[in-house]
């Protein structure tokens, strides 16, 4: 592909566009924002600014630390009671909206449709909320007898000085049930991202590796950073099962806390959402000797490629054969089914502004559909998600990042077990199969735009200037985009559809994109009289 659609139109100079857009801001703000734009030039090592504060007043997609911790990583664990400690809102807004699906296990425990909060009142803010939190944990335990309880601190909790860790420990002892406390107050960090890290840390410290029971045989994996939105994890597991690969635990889609406790028994970790879960992958490798593979199960070819990476890791001829057979069968079927969509979508343009990984993942799938990603960016990613993990050593730690604890991890004295001979591991690393993520930018061709933490006004201008055929974003942008007459696909919640992962998911996605892009309703934006000047009909008596 030589240059993107953006650069093929001589009337549009992307560099000029970036400049014009930033000029809308106050000068100092403009200077900051400029660094979040890249007009791709693959011949250069390009650097983008990411994971820094959003300038106050800018209308951003971003959320808070609590959202990243409770909302993204911890909330999906379905057989735990997750208590939000704070005023009612934070619990309320993170209740049932993310479509992280869960099927209860044999014990029937399922707290996913529930919302638990200490519903803090002014008295609690004035006199401290620890007492209420203690009582809330006890009430939750008495009513539900869950296997574990989590507590999530919200903004005021940190300020008034409630020691949620101490309360958790105390109640854990008193009730005999594990209580995990997360200090994920909303103001921490610059986006959801801090919350992911906090969640990773606590799960690693208190859950992973706490149950050594049972022998785990065969090609066992953990799915990390797969949240089972719209049932993605189930489609992945369907294919895995055909191949003979067994998922021990998922972080944290359809997750059971019992299974997470035994995650350290797996052979390899598969990392889907690099941004939200790479901490866990790293820590588990250090502590237990489990390497990780960056996978992307989104897209037909992406799925096939990821399966091959897994096979390559295990270096088992039978598995490789089985994987290849499954790929052949599933790809053929999927390709057949998307053919019609592809015909109708070929050459259409798309922009992606979403999350910390999906804006990259879905580019594979759009390629399968013949669509061109002309602009892409993340909401809360770090530089390594754009430029690859190679930049990590050089990341500067600013005040906002420093607030999020970096655990010191060492090899677990009893549980560390290298999964590969050192040379094999080195080879896999050299082949970029293991412990490797190259970031989004290498996949973005010349002349495309990369935009970090896109703002409302930037989105408006992008649409006006480039009028893409589709924009993938979240709920807050969706109807703004669509009022322009441009279809907008929510890639957080899949517009209440899914699964989109795996082979069948790709077909499903193709169907949904075809529906949105080619919906006849878009032809009705203008009434006939708005399209052509008023015609006096032959009937009119003059």
């Amino acid at each position, binding site marked *: 592909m030589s240059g993107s659609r953006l650069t093929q139109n001589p009337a549009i100079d992307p560099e000029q566009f970036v400049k014009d857009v930033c000029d*809308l801001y106050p000068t100092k703000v403009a200077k900051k924002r400029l660094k979040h734009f890249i007009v791709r030039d693959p011949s250069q090592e390009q650097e983008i600014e990411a994971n820094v504060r959003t300038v106050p*007043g800018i209308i951003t997609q971003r959320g808070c630390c609590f959202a990243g911790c409770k909302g993204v990583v911890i909330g999906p664990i379905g057989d735990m009671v997750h208590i939000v400690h704070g005023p009612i809102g934070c619990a*309320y807004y*993170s209740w049932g909206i993310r479509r992280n699906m869960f099927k209860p296990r044999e014990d029937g425990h399922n707290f996913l449709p529930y919302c638990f909060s200490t519903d803090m009142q002014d008295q609690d*803010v004035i006199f401290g909320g620890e007492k209420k939190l203690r009582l809330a944990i006890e009430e939750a335990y008495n009513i539900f007898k869950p296997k574990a309880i989590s507590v999530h601190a919200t*903004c005021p909790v940190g300020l008034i000085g409630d020691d949620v860790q101490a309360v958790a420990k105390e109640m854990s002892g008193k009730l005999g049930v594990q209580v995990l406390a997360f200090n994920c107050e909303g103001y921490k960090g610059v986006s959801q991202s801090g919350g992911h890290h906090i969640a990773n840390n606590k799960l690693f410290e208190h859950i992973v590796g706490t149950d050594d029971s049972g022998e785990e045989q065969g090609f066992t994996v953990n799915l990390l950073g797969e949240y089972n939105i719209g049932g993605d994890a189930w489609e992945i597991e369907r294919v895995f099962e055909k191949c003979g690969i067994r998922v021990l635990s998922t972080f944290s889609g359809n997750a059971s806390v019992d299974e997470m406790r035994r995650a350290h028994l797996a052979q390899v970790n598969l990392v889907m959402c690099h941004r939200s879960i790479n901490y866990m992958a790293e820590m588990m490798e250090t502590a237990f000797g489990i390497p990780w593979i960056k996978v992307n199960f989104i897209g037909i070819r992406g799925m096939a490629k990821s399966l091959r990476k897994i096979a390559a890791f295990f270096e088992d001829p039978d598995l490789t054969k089985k994987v290849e057979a499954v790929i052949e069968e599933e790809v053929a079927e999927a390709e057949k089914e998307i053919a019609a969509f592809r015909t109708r979508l070929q050459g259409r343009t798309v922009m992606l502004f979403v999350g910390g990984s999906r804006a990259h993942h879905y580019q594979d799938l759009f390629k399968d559909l013949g669509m061109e990603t002309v602009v892409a960016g993340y909401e809360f990613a770090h530089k390594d998600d754009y430029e690859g993990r190679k930049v990590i050593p050089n990341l500067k730690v600013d005040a906002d990042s420093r607030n999020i604890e970096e655990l010191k991890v060492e090899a677990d004295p009893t549980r560390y077990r290298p999964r590969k001979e050192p040379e094999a591991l080195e080879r896999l690393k050299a082949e970029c199969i293991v412990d490797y993520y190259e970031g989004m930018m290498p996949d973005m061709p010349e002349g495309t735009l990369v935009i970090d933490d896109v703002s409302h006004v930037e989105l408006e201008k992008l649409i006006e200037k480039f009028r893409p055929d589709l924009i993938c974003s979240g709920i*807050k942008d969706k109807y703004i985009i669509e009022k*322009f007459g441009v279809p907008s696909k929510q890639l957080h919640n899949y517009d209440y559809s899914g699964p989109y992962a795996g082979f069948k998911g790709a077909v499903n996605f193709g169907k949904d994109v075809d529906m949105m892009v080619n919906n006849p309703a878009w032809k009705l934006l203008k009434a006939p009289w708005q399209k052509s000047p008023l015609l006096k009909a032959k009937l009119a008596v003059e």
Partner: protein
Amino acid sequence: MLDMTPKEIVERQALRINPAKTCQPIGAMYAALGIHRCLPHSHGSQGCCSYHRSHLTRHYREPVVASTSSFTEGAAVFGGAPNLRQSLKTIFQVYDPDVVSVHTTCLSETIGDDIPSMIKKARDDGLIPENKWVIHANCPSYVGSHITGFSTMTRAMVDYFSDNGDKVKGRINVVPGFVEPPDMAEIKRVVTEMGVESIVFPDTSDVLNTAMTGDYRMYPNGGVTVRSLMRTGSSQATLALGAFASEAAAKLLETKCGVPFQLLDLPIGISATDRFVQAIMDITGAEPSSGMVDDRGRLLDIVTDMQHYLYNKKVALFGDPDQMVALTDFLASAGMKPLYVITGTPGKRFEERVRGILKDVVPGAVVKAAADLFYLHQLIKNEPVDLLIGNTYGKYIARAENIPFVRFGFPILDRVGHSYFPTLGYRGGMYLLSNIVNTLLERKDQDDPEERFELVM
């Protein structure tokens, strides 16, 4: 569904499960969207603004634009003044609203940020352009509910804008409360049809139910204008619809500008709408149009035509307090039996009012403020009902207990109609009641054995 919920009810003092309310700022944001060319601004962490925008967007399926002070740990420690200043600078340059409505959050309230001073300083420092306004509402999330936030922001409109002046006879203010855009439009339509001039505030019609035209407008046509808000101080009287959402603004308007007010129920159903119309008649001498009287009679006609399906049906309802009061009255007047009436918003006044309505009709009714859906579910497990009415969150209970379910109130995340069809007034009553009746009929069709499957109902 909800299999973890035990039938046995034990009192809880600390744990809220499945709330029937949310926090103040979203109400303030919603109210502020009812001002023309206003950009709501959330003074707190980014998450608040994101959650509130997302939630309102899901309910309205419309753009909901608001900005945030994007607090980080530094702001939490040292206060949010610099964030607000930077915000105002950015906002006025980039988004050019006429009004910025700042609402606080639990974070900035706990910190103790003094918004009026910050606004004053920003004004003094020239951060607020000429003919632009910044208003504010204090929204400690740990007090009241989203209704409180709505009420406070509505009150702020009076506080910041209402000018005392010679009273214009025949012009009234209507504070409609936390109702849907088509409800606000319906109130305007009805008052206009009576030949009465009115200022309805806030007014989210044509803001949160706009057209799909291919042309996006950040500030849609709707919303009460600042000019109109200023003129509220010289209206003849104010009708405050709903004690919880609307009384505070009306009261302040009386204190500040001497505009007398009447506190009325939300006009849901026949009697409450009668009282609304009567109040306008009393104040202005205007008469209801014949069309309105016809609509009244049509609504009653549905009640009498379909009484067989309504009479003595046990209903559980939950939602915001002003809505629950009027709805309870409406359902009881149509022969139904509201057995459980629940709101998440705290307020003894609510319980007293609803108990008063049900005193003779359903003496054993359970009426509870500051309650939650977990409790409501347990009540239903102990004595089932024929119908559940409430917001989308009720769907879990409806499925668990296999109860027909009418969506009413805020939020509705899984059906369409609430953005377009009012439930207030006589016409709104027709829509609401048709919905209730049809839901009951649908269920009857499902339940009837084949030999009793009815063609005519």
